[in-house]
């Protein structure tokens, strides 16, 4: 019988079982690294560094996890905080960089294929919309869970998801079936 996340967390709490924590890392590494790759715009090295920091923080603070939310939601919140702190450290003002980054993008570099276009369109979204879309549409979080992860009002999450979706749809209009 495969142990649930709650079982593994209980083992970490009771016995400081690092093998149990390792299993949690193995289960969630893909989604956490995927989220951070989206946030860092596929800067794989930076995303993996932040993912590592995320899991180390999770281990140190696992006693503060009360099981009110899913473990993955809790991890996403830590990952998002790591990303924001790193961005602050680098003094990257996200709003300014967004525009610069969009201006630097060469439309000719877009490869054919819906998947590639979709990921490209996703990376073009402003950070707040991109994060909301990645959490809710890609990772299946509810609006409420995403609001907790991002520490913003529920209405803002809904608006960001709506706007992000609309922009993605417009960008991908050519792929719509006739």
């Amino acid at each position, binding site marked *: 019988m495969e142990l649930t996340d709650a079982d593994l967390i209980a083992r970490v709490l009771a016995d400081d079982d690092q093998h149990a924590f390792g299993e949690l890392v193995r289960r969630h590494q893909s989604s956490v690294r995927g989220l951070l790759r989206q946030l860092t715009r596929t800067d794989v090295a930076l995303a993996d560094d932040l993912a590592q920091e995320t899991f180390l923080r999770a281990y140190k603070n696992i006693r503060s996890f009360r099981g009110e939310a899913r473990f993955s939601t809790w991890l996403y919140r830590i990952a998002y905080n790591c990303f924001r702190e790193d961005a602050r450290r680098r003094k990257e003002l996200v709003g300014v960089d967004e525009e610069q980054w969009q201006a630097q993008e060469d439309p000719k570099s877009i490869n054919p294929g819906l*998947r590639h276009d*979709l990921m490209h369109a996703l990376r073009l979204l402003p950070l707040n919309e991109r994060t909301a879309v990645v959490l809710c549409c890609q990772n299946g979080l509810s609006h409420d869970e995403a609001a907790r992860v991002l520490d913003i009002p529920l209405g803002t999450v809904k608006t960001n998801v709506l706007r992000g979706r609309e922009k993605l749809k417009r960008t991908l209009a050519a792929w719509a079936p006739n």
Partner: protein
Amino acid sequence: MIDDETLDRQLREAVPYIDDDGFTARVMANLPTTRRESGWLRAVILLGLALIGSGVAYLIGAGHVVREGIIELANFPIWLLLVFAFGCGLVVGAFAVVFAIRKTPEVRDLTRLEF
């Protein structure tokens, strides 16, 4: 235009599973070990204190109390010794079961089941 459901499905499918490629091992190698060390340290301190306490008790003359106790116990009838041993076994066994339940999440969860 693409509908919400199709868009969400495409978004989910566009994200490939990221292979571990040693990521978990790197995280594990960087986990702090202080809590584990403190557990060992605590056990060593407890054992050391117990040994020192026993040595001091023996030196100040409590040793003869233990010797007399053992001699007195040896004079007890055999059935009483058996009952005493059985009682001790029950007490130790009960502690072991309680400790095992506390340390085993699956069993602990089972004991909380309500029917």
